[in-house]
């Protein structure tokens, strides 16, 4: 195991580096200077952009459209003085990294350009942002669904969740009815349009409907008998149904349905399709943990079951969960590259590793378009695989 240690460290360093590049992408590759002094006024064009989009500051006056053609007193430029997707017509038509380029002294296109002179390095930096966004976003969604379901299924099993029949029937039937009522009648009545409020109202409908029906059923003696909720069977059945869905095929069909491609939709769909993996692994892990002596000890000392689950059992399962997450991260990034390579679901103006690779197909001798994005993608997937390797 010792000789593998450096490999894992290298993988972590690679992924963290990618995260840093993604976070600071605008400061690494931009066709605006970081700090500039123009006509005696010091400006921070890149930083200012963030303020403008947040509505904190108003744009600089007078507006500068093209910084490269503006007379400045002095300027500090980003490492790559080009934005992804911005064309540089002086260096158009596939300039190789080693070609003679018509640029300012410290503004070479280090990794070449494509047909419109768009800088490949800037594209790679922007692509790492998309990859990290899709990877982490879909990972979070799959954890959000998979951890509660897998946790409850593994920890409580089929007979751990005890209550009256009224409670379980009320919560499942009444909850469903409440949810449907909220969707059909309450949403138009209150004219709810924002996403957050919709979710809140639906959740409220579920809880209120469940509580009401449980209260009502409690009056009938048959429903007052104790019963346990078969959490494990229900979750396993749901996983089974999801496993039968052909993910890639459904993804292509689903993304073609949507009129306006958006990264959020891609994140949501990949996340939802991936939760069964998380749930299954966590369930297996908690099945093992719940029979360990320290859980028994906690139970004997009178701690609540939910408290044991959240404070004692789940923290112990974080290690295996991280391993699954690393693997899922690599998978999601690969899937994003698939989709943007096919040109499905990812907005057309977004520069990604996959879209750069697709661009290389129209011009086979422009090797720099094919090699660099592929190398980045491969290293990222390999890093995720190294971390996701189960011992």
């Amino acid at each position, binding site marked *: 195991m010792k000789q593998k240690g450096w490999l894992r460290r290298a993988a972590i360093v690679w992924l963290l580096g990618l995260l840093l590049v993604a976070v600071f992408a605008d400061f690494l590759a931009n066709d605006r200077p970081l700090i500039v002094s123009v006509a005696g006024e010091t400006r921070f064009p890149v930083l200012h952009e963030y303020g403008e989009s947040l509505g904190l500051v108003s744009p600089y006056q007078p507006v500068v459209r093209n910084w490269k053609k503006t007379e400045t007193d002095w300027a500090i430029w980003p490492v790559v003085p080009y934005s992804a997707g911005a064309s540089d017509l002086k260096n158009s038509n596939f300039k190789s990294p080693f070609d003679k380029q018509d640029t300012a002294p410290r503004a070479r296109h280090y990794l070449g350009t494509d047909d419109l002179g768009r800088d490949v390095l800037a594209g790679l930096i922007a692509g790492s942002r998309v990859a990290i966004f899709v990877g982490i976003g879909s990972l979070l969604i799959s954890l959000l669904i998979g951890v509660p379901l897998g946790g409850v299924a593994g920890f409580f099993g089929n007979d751990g969740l005890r209550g009256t029949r009224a409670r379980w029937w009320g919560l499942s039937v009444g909850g469903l009815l409440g949810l*449907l*009522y909220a969707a*059909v*009648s*309450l949403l*138009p*009545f209150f*004219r709810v349009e924002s996403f957050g409020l919709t979710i809140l109202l639906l959740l409220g409908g579920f809880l209120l409907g469940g509580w009401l029906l449980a209260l009502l059923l409690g009056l009938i003696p048959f429903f007052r008998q104790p019963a346990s909720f078969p959490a494990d*069977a229900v979750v*396993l059945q749901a996983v*089974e*149904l999801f*496993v*039968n*869905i*052909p*993910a*890639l*095929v*459904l993804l*292509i*069909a*689903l*993304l*073609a*349905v949507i*009129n306006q491609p958006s990264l959020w939709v891609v994140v949501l769909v990949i996340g939802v399709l991936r939760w069964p*993996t998380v749930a*299954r*692994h966590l369930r*297996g892990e908690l099945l093992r943990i719940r029979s360990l002596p320290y859980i028994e000890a906690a139970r004997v000392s009178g701690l609540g079951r939910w408290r044991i689950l959240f404070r004692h059992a789940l923290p112990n399962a974080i290690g295996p969960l991280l391993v699954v997450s690393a693997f899922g991260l690599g998978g999601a990034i*690969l899937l994003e*590259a*698939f989709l943007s*390579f*096919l040109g*499905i679901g990812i907005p057309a103006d977004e520069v990604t590793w996959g879209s750069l*690779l697709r661009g*290389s*197909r129209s011009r*086979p*001798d422009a*090797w720099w378009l*094919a*090699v660099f994005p*592929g190398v980045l*993608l*491969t290293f990222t*997937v*390999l890093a995720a*695989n190294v971390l996701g390797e189960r011992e």
Partner: protein
Amino acid sequence: MLRYAIRRLSLLPLSLFLLSLICFGLLQLTPDDPVQRLLPDEDARLSNNDPEAYDRSYRSAAADLGYDRPAFYFSLQNAALPDTLYRIVRPEERALLRAFTLRTGNWPAVSHYYHTLKRIAWAPASADQPETTTLLRRLLLQNDFDRAKQSINDLPNAPQTAPLKAAFSALETQTSRAKLLLPALDWHGSNNQYHNWISKLLRGELGVSLNDRRPVGKKIGRALKWTALINGFAILLVFFLSIPLGLYMAGYRGGRFDRITTVGLFLLFGIPSFWVATLLTNFFTTPAFGMDFFPSMGFGEVPEGASVWQIIRIRAAHLFLPVLCLAYPSLAYVSRHLRRSAAHEMNQAYVKTARLKGLSRSAILWRHVLRNASFPIITLLAGILPALLAGSVLIERIFNLPGMGQLLYNAALVRDWPVVIIVVLLSGLLTAVGLLLADLAYAFADPRIRLNATKPSAS
């Protein structure tokens, strides 16, 4: 064993039913209008000059396709909406009626507004005010209440628009929003779109492509042949290479062969195959780098009267790279997992017994270890059927092979729903059948496994 199989089989129809619901839901969600696409172009031109005639031909086309029926056996909707809303066949107008009714709760007023608007907008365009007519016709598509209000206020005060303004102000004043609080459950019976669609599907009528009007079944049959061909070769390659590789890595574990192959397979598993395929096509099928070793795209043309050897040579040249790209990720996957499970078996007591009996290492590996370590092979087998469809989307795209992946991709791009839905359904069916076969095979290879037991390394 039999009981296990039956229990497992009984879950299959449920999965397929749910998948068909998902597919049908997708069909309903599609934003574009299939009726409009099927109408001939002359009819579309009619829509400007004589909207009433266009509406008539649209209605009859929709009725032919069954779009004037309810979507499902039952519907749960707001009580303010009429239970026969599905009879309005044009999606834009249905959206208008639905949005306005959910806003005001007063269906009769909305209906009155709709009919008034239709009457005025469809009247022959007056020569002096052509823009008023355009505005009115655009109102028929406007399902945003506030914007519609804006447009109606902007209309000139002419005698012909007066009834419309009156109808709209009635809509604004006579609201009965309390009605919105009631839900309504309606039963439509079996004369609905889903029943119609699924019974046609079960009878084997897969529909026609919206794009070229060819039967979907024929299109899929043609594509399936090629996909089956390349996947068949890829699977054969995987089995012939990965079983000995995995077994001998486990047999000589810790040795130099094992260490080098482990690293190599790990790299192979991580390198995305579509990148490798792109590189291979760029370098070896184009003259760009002077290494034009392989013919570029497709399956190649076989000349008239060619001998068997010639055919094989031509096809092999075209198939070599795609099969390689399709096979190597599975090769790495199966070998790595086979090595892990075989290495685990090598530590068992029965292997020691076999060795003490004096069996050679090869005999132990092939005769005793293989069956007990065969789970990864079964997992791959489960993946074969769905992979026939889905796994090769990118490879077929890159090498431009006219298989299922290419068919799905092209159909999705032009929104040819009948084709997309059938491909999704088919691949779901194959995924389910593949998993079922794998589960049965697991149980066959290891009789201790039963339903609901945790599956070994199925992920």
